[in-house]
């Protein structure tokens, strides 16, 4: 909503309402602090030296901030026996998340389009079954999936993880796109059919150009889910092919030597940074798209 539209709202006036508003903003302010505090502690701790951490309080600002801990977390912290930092695992995650998001979003868009605009016998049943997939807990699919990956020869590889995430994500991506495309007039597809366009031409030239809100929502959702996933990562990959979440866990839980809180904090922030960036860049569309989906669902 634009600023003018918000300012244009007529509000009740009077002392009582003023007090209520002040109270409201005070409470909201408390919530903001509550949410910001952990982030503040993490950032400030990551900029301190180990001595300072041991000596000072959790909430104090760093005396001479430096990025030593960040550098260590990125390239020389020890994950298990290797001391190359998070960097290689970060690339594992990128190599996993990019294809998994692209493939699951593309397939979800195709599914949503086919389910709404090329209605066939049993379309509703298929959709109901796919929707059911969204409610299956991770734990339930672990063993069957491990066996399937083994049979496919993908066990312990990033490719296997991409496959798992794509399959698991289909339920969500299909749901988002179906809810979006169901709101698109069938007439547009009929017009395109009369214009001579086939299934894929209508998809790429007519439907997809209308779908950016759905695409953005789906990409953000899938990106966060897949990037932040720990369970599939730890279950289906080994050592070198671990995603960053698993590596982070290994750094933090290393039992040898002193606990380097500053490095742990820096590593945690590094691992979370990509999702944060995605939210900041596309968050506006996310809220808008979710609202649209909710209305049309």
């Amino acid at each position, binding site marked *: 909503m634009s600023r003018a539209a918000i300012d244009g709202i007529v509000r009740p006036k009077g002392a009582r309402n003023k007090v209520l508003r002040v109270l409201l903003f005070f409470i909201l302010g408390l919530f903001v602090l509550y949410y910001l505090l952990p982030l503040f502690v993490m950032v400030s701790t990551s900029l301190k030296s180990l001595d300072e951490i041991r000596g000072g309080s959790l909430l104090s600002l760093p005396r001479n901030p430096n990025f030593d801990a960040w550098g260590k977390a990125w390239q020389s912290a020890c994950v298990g026996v290797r001391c190359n930092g998070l960097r290689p695992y970060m690339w594992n995650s990128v190599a996993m998340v990019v294809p998994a998001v692209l493939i699951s979003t593309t397939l979800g868009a195709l599914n949503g389009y086919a389910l709404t605009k090329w209605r066939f016998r049993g379309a509703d049943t298929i959709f109901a079954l796919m929707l059911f997939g969204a409610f299956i807990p991770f734990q339930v699919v672990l063993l069957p999936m491990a066996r399937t990956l083994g049979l496919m020869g993908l066990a312990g590889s990033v490719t296997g993880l991409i496959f798992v995430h794509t399959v698991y994500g289909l339920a969500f991506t299909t749901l988002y796109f179906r809810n979006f495309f169901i709101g698109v007039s069938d007439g547009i597809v009929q017009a395109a059919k*009369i214009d*001579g*366009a086939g299934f894929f031409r209508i998809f790429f030239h007519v439907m997809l150009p209308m779908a950016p809100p759905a695409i953005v929502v789906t990409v953000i959702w899938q990106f966060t889910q897949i990037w932040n996933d720990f369970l599939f990562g730890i279950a289906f990959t080994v050592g070198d092919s671990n995603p960053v979440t698993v590596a982070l866990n290994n750094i933090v839980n290393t039992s040898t030597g002193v606990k380097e809180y500053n490095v742990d904090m820096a590593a945690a922030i590094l691992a979370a940074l990509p999702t944060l960036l995605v939210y900041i860049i596309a968050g506006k569309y996310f809220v808008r798209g979710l609202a649209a989906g909710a209305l049309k669902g």
Partner: protein
Amino acid sequence: MSNVRLEKVWKRFGATEVIKGVDIEFNEGEFVVLVGPSGCGKSTLLNLVAGLETLSSGNIFIGDRLVNDIPPKDRNIAMVFQSYALYPTKTVHKNITFGMETRRVPVAEQERALKQVTELLHIDSFLERKPGQLSGGQRQRVAMGRALVRHPDVFLFDEPLSNLDAKLRIEMRTEIKKLHQQLGKTIIYVTHDQIEAMTLASRIAVMDNGHIRQFASPETIYEEPEDLFVAEFIGAPSMNIVRGRIRKKGQYVVEVIDEEGSILFPLPDRLLKPAAAREDQEVFLGMRPETITRKGAQRPSVNMFSFQRAIDVVEPTGPDTMLVFTLGNIEAIARVHPEDREQAGAKYAFEVDMGKAKLFDVKTGKRL
């Protein structure tokens, strides 16, 4: 050859029968209007001709070609939708040329066709805008343009004007009629609006519940409706249909009785034969509102008959004033000149042209 022929066409969606055995033939170059109440299957019939729905049974021919299994794009038809169905992300230009691009028409030819139709429809000044930036009337024209560039054998229009305001609707109506005269192509046009139907059609097909009730010229539909349904559906306000009994009082009359007394409507010569066959039986007497006026307001003729009734309600419409009065079991409407109006409650001397009256069978609803 681009006549369209439907043979015993049935369409079912699951268990619901929507089109129930339609047999109809539209001639080449004809402007056919399909009218009927909401949900009677007009759009479905159009979609069947377009190939957007598959037939349950029967045959559809366009020209000499059986098109049952031919996809929409190869039927050489063009369609204009009620909601226009423009591609929202494409410019007007691309909306119109998308079909030609799909069919790989050379670019030079595309541009030529585009120029031709956009000039014809006066939409050449906003080719680079998106549909969202156009008014309803402009969108409507773009939708027409998209259909025109195909040079189809048959145009299908599904309520193309229903989203426009009254004034624009009349303008576009005239333009569509002009367009038809210029192009001479077969047009099948669906509408709710019977004025549109009467003004545009060379023939009107009245549909009801999956059947074609009557298919004839507008004049025939208006003056010689096959049955009660057509008679009531066409004409606004619709025909007054009163229950009465045929009597022989010197000549044949229809006796209508209500609280204000009985009226004996004399039947014209034209109706003597059916009347004689139904002496003392019930019938429906149909009289269009414009045939009932103030006494002395119409050209005198032997078929004029006058009667008195109290006015219940007065409804001015501008050019005419509607007087509502009770007749038999219905609220009847008379259409009089505005200067002939009287206050509600007043006794009024009406005059009806019985030469235009119609009789309908009570059981079958057929016109006698």
